[in-house]
């Protein structure tokens, strides 16, 4: 099985994880900019982070035969700070021409505040201005439904958004329908505790089909599994699904979404989506 992990925070993972992912069939991954676990104090720190994501990390991944792509932003957990946001938004364009940058992300909301929403809108405008794909984080746990609804409504009201160029990630059963019904791509995060375990992700595919839905590990510095996608593949086979359907989810779908960027070099093994068994 070959696969693409559309969401992996490799800056907080070890080289052993790269090795294990490579052994399990990972050919490419994309790394959205995220929260470091603490609030950064200046735009200079973000510049260093963006440099890491566009220089050091792709070199580290390449040692294991994995193509590393990235997304840039000030993440939702720091979005309350409007002054810092303005400074970071000014430096992001300096990095958009780096060869592994696919777009703006993971932007979105955390606690769904007034300032977070303004910061989200600013990033959307930046993406539109530079014709970038958009990768969106939806809030955690009790804020998931609310934040997803605010994000979907905000994008729908914008009028200039092509939903096929937007991935609204971290969906769960109670949010997936509103995302898909508005034409966006969505992602299921295969977390052991706080998001969607593989069995529940498979339930979503069985109920909604495979069109415009991806899976990812979203592995980071917390309790998460860099091998979540091969584990998902194993559970798919256990549930009686075909290798063709697994390939559709873990390879073709990420290729279809990410392939909208000319920088993404992998292609789906078939042109059109197939339905669930």
């Amino acid at each position, binding site marked *: 099985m070959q696969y693409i992990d559309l969401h992996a925070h490799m800056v907080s993972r070890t080289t052993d994880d790269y090795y294990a992912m490579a052994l399990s069939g990972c050919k490419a991954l994309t790394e959205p900019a995220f929260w470091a676990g603490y609030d950064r104090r200046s735009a200079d720190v973000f510049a260093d982070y963006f440099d890491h994501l566009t220089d050091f990390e792709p070199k580290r991944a390449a040692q294991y035969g994995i193509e590393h792509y990235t997304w840039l932003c000030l993440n939702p957990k720091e979005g*309350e700070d409007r002054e810092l946001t303005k400074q970071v938004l000014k430096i992001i364009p300096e990095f958009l021409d780096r060869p592994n940058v696919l777009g703006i992300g993971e932007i979105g909301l955390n606690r769904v505040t007034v*300032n977070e929403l303004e910061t989200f809108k600013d990033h959307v405008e930046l993406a539109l201005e530079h014709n970038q794909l958009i990768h969106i984080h939806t809030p955690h746990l009790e804020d998931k439904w*609310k934040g997803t609804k*605010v994000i979907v409504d905000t994008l729908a009201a914008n009028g200039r958004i092509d939903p096929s160029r937007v991935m609204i990630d971290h969906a*769960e059963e109670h949010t997936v329908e509103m995302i898909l019904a508005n034409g966006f791509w969505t992602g299921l995060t295969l977390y052991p505790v706080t998001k969607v375990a593989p069995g529940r992700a498979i339930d979503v595919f069985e*109920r909604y089909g495979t069109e415009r839905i991806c899976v990812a590990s979203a592995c980071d510095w917390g309790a998460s599994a860099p091998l979540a996608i091969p584990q998902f593949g194993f559970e798919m086979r256990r549930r*009686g699904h075909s290798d063709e359907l697994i390939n559709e989810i873990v390879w073709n779908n990420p290729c279809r979404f990410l392939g909208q960027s000319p920088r993404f070099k992998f292609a789906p093994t078939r042109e059109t989506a197939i339905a669930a*068994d």
Partner: protein
Amino acid sequence: MSSYENTCPLSQQQLIDEYFMEHRVKVLDLAAFLDRFERSVDKNAEQDFRIVAFRESLRELISAAPGRVERVEMIFSDQSTELLPSLDRKAAYGASIRQQEHN
């Protein structure tokens, strides 16, 4: 846009044969947690918003209506769309304190 009936490719018998043990233990974990909560040396959180939502969610597990997981997720959710005026905290609790206030 979702389908429900007949969408799982395994028969009920296959589901039981393959998955019964790993779900049996989850039910026992829930039962043990509730016993542990009751045995607590200090009964100071009987109405904590998380345990209130937790107990409400358990009622959904024995509901006969399809869509149990969505209803459980909504029990744990803030169902308003009102923006917070400012950031109160970074982390989530897993259940909504605001939802309990609304109820």
